[in-house]
């Protein structure tokens, strides 16, 4: 079986890099790319609702094949986790296992990105005007990112054994496209969700009915840094 792939031209790549320089601009672009990529297969609508029935934004949603073997396509473009205004942009990036993630550093100050998340540990000092290679994530799991220069910085990369993934929009909705739904489970993850992992995975069937995750536990508050809106600055 084959999955529809995102075809990334050089122009698109540049667009991604440009988009990454503005906070919040990357997500719509990813969503657009995803939709354009899912012209074939079955589209499954997914909703993530908090315990009050309100949609939860920016939740990673991905489908994992549970029947038969899946050969993941080779990632064709490097996902981007930028540093903008001393924040990780996006706050949560979903990538396929084996993806090489670019950390371009759009700030004028140095950063030193690291993760101690086993088994995807790495550190990447990024001084002004210096080139740094992308970081390849060969193991699935949650990679929590920090900056050793700016202690408040916090970001996440979710590495998934799948090429079918997206994030929920501001209304908590997302759409995934798979060829034979009954061979898949759909999973969600967000640093804000505190529900048990078992309740965050659902087997699909051939009905192609919308899937709703209704969370039982109160969400963690969103992460705020010193450069977010009316927040206060960090001590120098």
């Amino acid at each position, binding site marked *: 079986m084959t999955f529809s792939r995102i075809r990334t031209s050089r122009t698109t790549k540049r667009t991604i890099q440009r988009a990454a320089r503005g906070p919040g601009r990357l997500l719509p672009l990813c969503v657009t790319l995803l939709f354009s990529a899912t012209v074939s297969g079955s589209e499954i609508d997914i909703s993530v609702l908090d315990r009050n029935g309100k949609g939860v934004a920016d939740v990673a949603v991905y489908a994992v094949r549970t029947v038969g073997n899946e050969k993941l396509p080779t990632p064709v473009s490097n996902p981007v986790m930028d540093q903008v205004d001393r924040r990780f942009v996006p706050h949560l990036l979903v990538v396929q296992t084996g993806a090489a993630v670019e950390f371009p550093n759009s700030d*004028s*100050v*140095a950063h*030193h990105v*690291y993760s*101690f998340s086993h088994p995807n540990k790495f*550190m990447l*000092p990024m*001084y*002004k*005007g*210096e080139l740094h290679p992308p970081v390849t994530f060969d193991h699935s799991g949650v990679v*929590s990112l*920090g900056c*050793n*220069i700016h*202690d*408040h910085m*916090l970001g*996440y990369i979710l590495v998934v054994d799948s090429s079918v993934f997206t994030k929920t929009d501001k209304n908590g909705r997302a759409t995934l496209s798979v060829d034979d739904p009954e061979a898949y489970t759909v999973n969600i993850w967000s*640093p*804000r969700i*505190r529900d048990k992992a078992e309740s965050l995975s659902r087997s699909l069937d051939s009905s192609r009915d919308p899937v709703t995750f209704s969370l039982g536990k109160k969400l*963690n*508050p*969103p*992460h*705020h*840094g*010193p450069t*977010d*809106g*009316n*927040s*206060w*600055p*960090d*001590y*120098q």
Partner: protein
Amino acid sequence: MARLPIKFAVAFISLAACAVYASDSPNRYQLNAGIDASYINASGYNSWTEGSVGKLLYDDTTDGLKISQAFADMEFWLTDTLKARAVVNAYPDDLGSLVDFTQAYLEWRPVPRSRNRYRLKVGAFYPHLSLENVSAGWDSPYTMSYSAINTWIAEELRTIGAELSVSRRPEVFGGAHTFSLQGAVFVANDPTGSLLSWKGWSAHNRQSRFNDKLPLAPLPQIQPGGLFEQQDPYVEPFREIDGRAGYYVGGEWQFDRKFLIRAMHYDNRADPLAFENGQYAWATKFEHIAAQFLLPANWNLMFQWMNGSSAMGPVVNGAHMVDIDFDSKYLMLTREFNRHRVSLRYDVFEVTQNDNTREDNNPEDGYVWTLAYFYELSNNVSIGAESLIIKTHHCGWIYYGLDPTQKEKQLQLTARFRFGS
């Protein structure tokens, strides 16, 4: 170590700069510089910086067009985890050389291997107290003049030693809670407390440099024949006198940038009987609490409270010859409206006297109102205005034939330039 020689600091920063430039990565530096050009109109007693009793930096004989702040804040990454930082401030006054260091230290920031982060500072730096002084060069983005507490910290307090801090990475608590603890051992801050006792609280933005000599008013007790006639007519706050180390321990809890609370216990463990080269050691200790809240409509509320004591000289009639308690607190409301920032602060301060030394009369109490406004013209330039009123009742002023109650006023118009590389 009698004094922190300026040669040491110059050597420190030169070596750091050379090491970075000689390394493979010459871009491992960060320079933040600032300069405030101000028109100041001040009234009240002549300034304490002129050897008088005025609480402000300026008075009606010295006000006018001034460079009211000038600093360069330099950071060099010697390795990926070892940073050297030095801050120099320039003040065109008679309290020291034109340019001198306010901070110079090495900070080791090992990359966390667990959810705990450890940071070790060694050198001379500010303890983690102020909520206001959060900009480069320990300057305040909120007002031009600091609160009474932070003005005193700028005048007389510096950690010259080692500080270890440990914090938990925020995702441990769902990304919203941050906890940290600090502990430090320091030397060379023995005369701290002299100015609080003999001058009292102030309100300004002058940060004492390592080799500054801060003038005292011509107090009768430090004149020839007075009880403390050996005291120089100035204070050198960062000298080691008794060979005893001081310490502080503190902690902070921050929740989602909506609430922050910070506390510290400080004790310089100075020997109140020690004296060397014109400077007494003052046994100074305090408790400090700071809290910050994000209020509805994005108003920010800040609060700091410091309560402590300072003592010098032998015990006579159950108290040291100079034995004071000090207390100050402030509330500040501040808000940004796009390019505008408005801040309103109210300070109260007090010094009470526990000794019975009639020749040394230090009690005071007062308040400060500060209203400041900044408009950001560009990333590098802001303009602003500040109105400040400080009212003090100080018992010792009658020695000079001065009214013990005085209201001093200052209006400041500022063009603020900030550069970063």
